[in-house]
């Protein structure tokens, strides 16, 4: 068991660590992982920051969260935004999750929300962009189709550079409530329609002038 395969490092505990690098390997575009990866040990972000024009910047870790509450009825939609800090933001990875895939009290049902993937991600579509660009054009996409399933994360094939002091926005639209099955031929809700929270996190770096190590600092 290699140390880089995750924490804790014992084989018996490995499957209990969803954040372990070994489990995320299949979603990563970098790293010397066998199997489903591009085999390149340098990320798109590494290559972007290696450019001569990037040498005048200090790159600091940046993460922005967009949190949206979406209703349960077909056609319910929500647009949520987050304001970027003043410095440019270089986006590398997107992750997301929802509490809508959980069976929360006082829902009735057998109480085994043991899903292998997101049900809600297949019943909601999404558009996303900034002030300048709608990344999917006119065509929304199922959430699970666009960002991969909520079991991991998605590295972008090339980084996206965003001007600071603008909004990142996400628009979600519900197609249907997914937790419905037939019991004795009658539609039954496994867990009841309710508002759900969807969080989408944009990970990357902020570009600060050389010598400025903290966002918001004047010098």
């Amino acid at each position, binding site marked *: 068991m290699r140390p880089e395969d995750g924490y804790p490092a014992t084989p018996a505990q490995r499957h209990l660590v969803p954040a372990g690098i070994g489990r995320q390997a299949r979603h990563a575009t970098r790293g010397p992982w066998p199997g489903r990866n591009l085999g390149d040990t340098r990320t798109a972000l590494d290559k972007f920051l290696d450019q001569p024009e990037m040498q005048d910047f200090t790159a600091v870790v940046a993460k922005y969260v967009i949190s949206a509450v979406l209703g349960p009825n077909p056609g319910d939609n929500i647009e949520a935004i987050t304001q970027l800090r003043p410095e440019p933001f270089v986006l590398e990875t997107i992750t997301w999750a929802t509490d809508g895939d959980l069976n929360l009290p006082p829902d009735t049902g057998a109480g085994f929300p043991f899903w292998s993937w997101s049900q809600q991600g297949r019943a909601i579509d999404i558009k996303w962009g900034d002030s300048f660009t709608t*990344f999917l054009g006119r065509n929304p*996409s199922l959430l699970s189709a666009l960002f991969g399933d909520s079991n991991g994360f998605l590295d972008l094939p090339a980084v996206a550079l965003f001007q600071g002091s603008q909004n990142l926005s996400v628009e979600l639209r519900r197609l249907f409530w997914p937790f419905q099955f037939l019991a004795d031929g009658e539609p039954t809700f496994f867990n009841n329609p309710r508002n759900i929270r969807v969080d989408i996190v944009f990970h990357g770096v902020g570009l600060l002038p050389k010598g400025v190590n903290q966002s918001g600092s004047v010098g």
Partner: protein
Amino acid sequence: MADMEQANRDVANAFRLYNQIPAMYVVTIPLGGDLGTPATRNTQLRPEPFLCKRVSWATTGDTLRFYGLPMTMNASIHGGVVECRFGDSFTTFLGQNAGLVRAVFGDSNGFLELGKGILLQGSQPVEVSLTRLAWPGFSANDEADGAPPAETRWDFVFHGVGLLPQGVEASGAAG
């Protein structure tokens, strides 16, 4: 792994004169519950060339509502009963042989990397065609059960980079 790294270096060298911006294209297909009738949709690429590096997909059919079985599955149910073809104006990528969606694109628990990538000319459609082979269900006491056949939505997302001339930072920009 060494071959993949060399492939990536080859790709990087081949396109080093271009600005590469992230690009995502979505093809959405409503597929009916009846068997054997193909459904085809396309999306129009922007003017710049598109280097496709990854395809991800999902379907509304893989929700309880459409397979009607109150259990979890570890793999796409509908992806195993629908076959696909995909291509652009010039190339039918699977030739004459359609493939099950799960087989071609990997299961919808993740996504499929294309290695060196597929270079697609701009200003043309990328097309996906689906044909339903069966409606999945389950049987209890020799009687078919589960959700009745219905239309499901299938989204295929082609991820990659758009290749813009040096100095051009946004698609559609004049200079």
